[in-house]
């Protein structure tokens, strides 16, 4: 195993330990915990056995295994940006509704 692989795995293990801590403090739902755990375990698998993505690259006609990793990473990042945008807008809408309800229910002399 080369140093770069070891460093990446160490980095991911730190992330997994944080993930476990968040679950312990009930800051993350169980379903999200398992989703992220699965994602990071697959990433460790790919780091230890890079032939997996080389195999994928050959079958997808992309060429190099590292290109497959970059394409998938980009795809995932864009998905997360979209997901977060929708999530933030939904939160924004909830805050607005709450502030509106408070504004309308408060008596004039309280404002």
């Amino acid at each position: 195993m080369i140093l770069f692989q070891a460093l990446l795995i160490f980095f991911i293990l730190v992330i997994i330990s944080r993930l476990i801590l968040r679950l312990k403090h009930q800051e993350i739902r169980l379903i999200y915990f398992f989703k992220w755990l699965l994602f990071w375990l697959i990433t460790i698998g790919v780091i230890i056995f890079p032939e997996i993505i080389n195999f994928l690259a050959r079958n997808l006609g992309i060429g190099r295994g590292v290109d497959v990793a970059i394409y998938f990473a980009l795809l995932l990042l864009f998905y997360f940006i979209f997901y977060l945008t929708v999530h933030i807008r939904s939160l924004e809408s909830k805050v607005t509704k709450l502030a509106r309800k408070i504004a309308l229910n408060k008596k004039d002399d309280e404002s």
Partner: protein
Amino acid sequence: MKTIILIPAFNEEKTIQKVINRCQPFADEIVVIDDGSKDKTPLIAKKNGAKVFKHEVNLGLGAALITGFEAALKIGADIVVTLDADGQHNPEEVPKLVQEIKNGAQFVVGSRMKHKSKKMPALRYFYNLGANLITYLLYGVWSSDSQSGLRAFSKDALCKINLNSQEMEVSSEFFKEVKKHNLVFKEVTIEPIYTKYSLSKGKTSQGFVTGLKTLARLILNKII
């Protein structure tokens, strides 16, 4: 017919008193939506006889107007006129808009672009022209001044429209509702007023970057 003037305000302690006092002869009631001001805007507004509804946090123009419409309907408005708190509208022009509603219009916009004077700064003119074009392309209704803050609504129009905008994009979203509900839409000419104060406020609230953000939010509203 009960006419309510609705003034969304955010940190407008310098102008709110004058604006409210000038509005008083033209409305049965004045409603100020304080959008989370950090200064004395809500206190001054209340002292001067306005009914104040306060957002605990700053949410944006769209959110403030929607709260204002709900408040106005709650207190029995038949006609609601919206007007900016920075003094860039002459309240003496309110009756012209109200008259159009009484004549059967459901949504009236006070158009600064139709005024013959050249008081509007060139940059603002082109910004407004671009906004009119974008509004038309997105919602299919042409207005000569889609971004004007001086507007009037009939009660039935307010009961029909369903707005979701948070910030400045609300000005364009009105036209989506005009199209959707086939509202009777009119424009009246109003005088463009640009004071040093309103121009300095406009630099932050209506600058190029804000324009781009507004456009992005309009497109996002369209697709999400």
